[in-house]
């Protein structure tokens, strides 16, 4: 029997509806895969096999009657940031120790209403603050991809003098793999690793500065951050409320479109949820990009960018040109200020959002001699280093006397960043093509990154502009680097034009092919 975990969502959907397989069989395949492989990857921080089997059974009953929703019987992994009723929800922080919400986030409620099956909660950087999944209280996640190099062996022609047998020689190629463990990116590192290692059919994720797109690029998966307001934030643990947006990580572009359709909704419980009907994203796949204008922003050609990334970008340009799109050079002059502005705006909002973790209403409490000391001890023990760092920066830039110099200045720069994009779109550009990340996946406990927080922040240099401007962005795998690691391209679209992103990403996917790690676990 074929390995059911290898099916895409679209393939599984067809087999489920055609009664070739059952939701229970599919779920059991994933439950076994997780049991076997999770100790290697640490992608799940909590698994819910009983709940999964129960949900699959309910799906089978519906499917047997020819009923069921768009995701009926599809097993998914859920980032630990989404509130799931009665199930571990801690944003991978110690401060939320033991928290099991009495309510369900809008995103997950939408998925269950469409028939999806929950496999468990996925590892992530603590409160989504990080680019490597190393800030998680539950430890790092291992990327299913490993560095490799191609070895060539030359075999001489073999002659057997006695029999006259001749075996022609030739060059044999084989890959030898490096055992160094790599990060899957972050903050949605568990989501990306689980999708890439076939431990779920698809996963939910969130993106505040690149937390969907960077891990997708590091694992050869597809990740989309929708337009701000497209997906409800209700019941999702808040990091930076004006930037946070949930989206899917999936094996291919079609699966990402299927998942986003179910995740997105108009939600009265989130005042920033936009009153626009959710389109059928899947219908955009397969449409031609002929005549479409693709913008190439010159400011994304940064100093020290590896040749592999530049070459990948050029390949992407060539593919879209071959497909009939028109390539235009554009300028987004405030690009370089997006990351510094982000490191004021995001920590400022985080310091306010994380004020609620005080040892009173949920999670950890560490006693003190009075209530203030109780707060201080709880937060000192409950938050990890990176989270403390960001709360401190946020508290400082919002404190009396510094607000104008930092926060107000950053919000003005943000207006300019958004204006850059508006001008490009007004000039007729339909979609912007950039690299997704400045490098491929790096090693766990990388010395340079550990020594300098700013170096880690630079991972988001190509993705953070999109959050600052509230736009949709998709990362699609496009090739391998010299070490055999996946690299991604990013497409940025007009507000609420996710359809064009799926349409264009599909053209790149068709040209580039799909990327899957060789199974070693």
């Amino acid at each position, binding site marked *: 029997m074929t390995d059911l975990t290898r099916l895409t969502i679209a393939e599984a959907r067809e087999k489920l509806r055609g009664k070739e397989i059952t939701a229970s069989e599919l779920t059991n395949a994933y439950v076994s895969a997780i049991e076997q492989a999770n100790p290697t990857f640490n992608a799940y921080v909590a698994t819910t096999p009983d709940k999964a089997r129960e949900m699959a059974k309910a799906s089978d009953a519906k499917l047997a009657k020819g009923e069921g929703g768009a995701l009926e019987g599809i097993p998914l992994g859920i980032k630990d940031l989404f509130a799931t009723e009665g199930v571990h929800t801690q944003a991978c922080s110690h401060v939320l120790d*033991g*928290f099991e*919400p*009495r*309510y369900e986030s809008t995103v997950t409620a939408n998925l269950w209403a469409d028939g999806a099956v929950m496999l468990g909660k996925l590892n992530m950087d603590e409160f989504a603050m990080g680019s490597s999944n190393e800030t998680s209280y539950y430890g790092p996640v291992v990327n299913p991809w490993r560095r490799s190099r191609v070895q060539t062996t030359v075999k001489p022609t073999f002659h057997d003098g006695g029999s006259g047998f001749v075996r022609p020689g030739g060059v044999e190629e084989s890959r030898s793999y490096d055992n160094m463990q790599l990060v899957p990116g972050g903050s949605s590192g568990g989501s990306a690793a689980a999708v890439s290692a076939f431990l779920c059919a698809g996963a939910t994720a969130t993106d505040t500065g690149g937390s969907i797109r960077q891990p997708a690029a590091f694992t050869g998966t597809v990740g989309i951050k929708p337009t*701000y307001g497209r997906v409800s934030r209700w019941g999702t643990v808040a990091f930076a409320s*004006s*930037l946070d947006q949930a989206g899917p990580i999936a094996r291919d572009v079609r699966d990402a479109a299927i998942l986003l359709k179910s995740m997105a909704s108009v939600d*009265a419980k989130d*005042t*920033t*949820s*936009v*009153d626009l009907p959710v389109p059928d994203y899947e219908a955009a796949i397969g449409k031609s990009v002929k005549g479409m204008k693709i913008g190439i922003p010159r400011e994304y050609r940064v100093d020290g960018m590896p040749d592999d990334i530049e070459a990948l970008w050029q390949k992407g340009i060539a593919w879209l040109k071959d497909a009939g799109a028109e390539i235009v050079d554009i300028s987004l002059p405030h690009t*370089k*200020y997006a990351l*510094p*502005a982000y*490191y*004021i705006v995001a920590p400022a909002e985080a310091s306010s959002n994380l*004020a609620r973790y005080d040892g*009173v*209403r*949920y*999670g*950890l409490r560490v*006693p*003190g001699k*009075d*209530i203030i*000391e109780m*707060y*201080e*001890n709880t*937060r*000192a023990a409950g938050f990890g280093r990176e989270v*403390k*760092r960001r*709360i*401190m*920066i946020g508290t*400082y830039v919002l404190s009396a006397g*510094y607000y104008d*110099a930092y926060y107000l*200045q*950053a*919000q*003005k*720069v*943000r*207006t*300019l960043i*958004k204006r850059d994009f508006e001008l490009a779109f007004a000039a007729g550009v339909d979609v912007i093509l950039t690299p997704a990340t400045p490098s491929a996946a790096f090693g766990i406990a990388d010395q340079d990154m550990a020594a*300098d*927080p*700013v170096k880690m*922040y630079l991972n988001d240099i190509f993705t953070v502009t999109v959050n*600052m401007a*509230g736009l949709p962005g998709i990362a699609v795998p496009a090739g391998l680097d010299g070490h055999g690691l996946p690299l991604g391209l990013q497409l940025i679209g007009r*507000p609420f034009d996710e359809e064009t992103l799926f349409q264009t990403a599909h053209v790149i996917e068709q040209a580039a092919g799909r990327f899957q790690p060789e199974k070693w676990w």
Partner: protein
Amino acid sequence: MSVDLKTVKRVAHLARIAVSEDDAQRMTGELNAILGFVEQLNEVDVSGVEPMTSVTPMEMKKRVDAVTDGGKAADIVANAPATDENFFLVPKVVE
């Protein structure tokens, strides 16, 4: 701008995070690295530019002023570290 040890301790107190002397020392260096990085924003001419208040142009949604939820006291305190009869328990704050 940069921060000194005294400022770091003051900010930590404002943020309600207990810090040891060593923590404060380390954080001073880290925070200054980040503040040094964001300093480049001062190069940008922002005269006449409005600060962003909403990334998507939209009107704030309003709803009828009516009770739509409630009666869930037990659910609300369910995850609290210390409670008594649906109240949150905290160390004494009033003498």
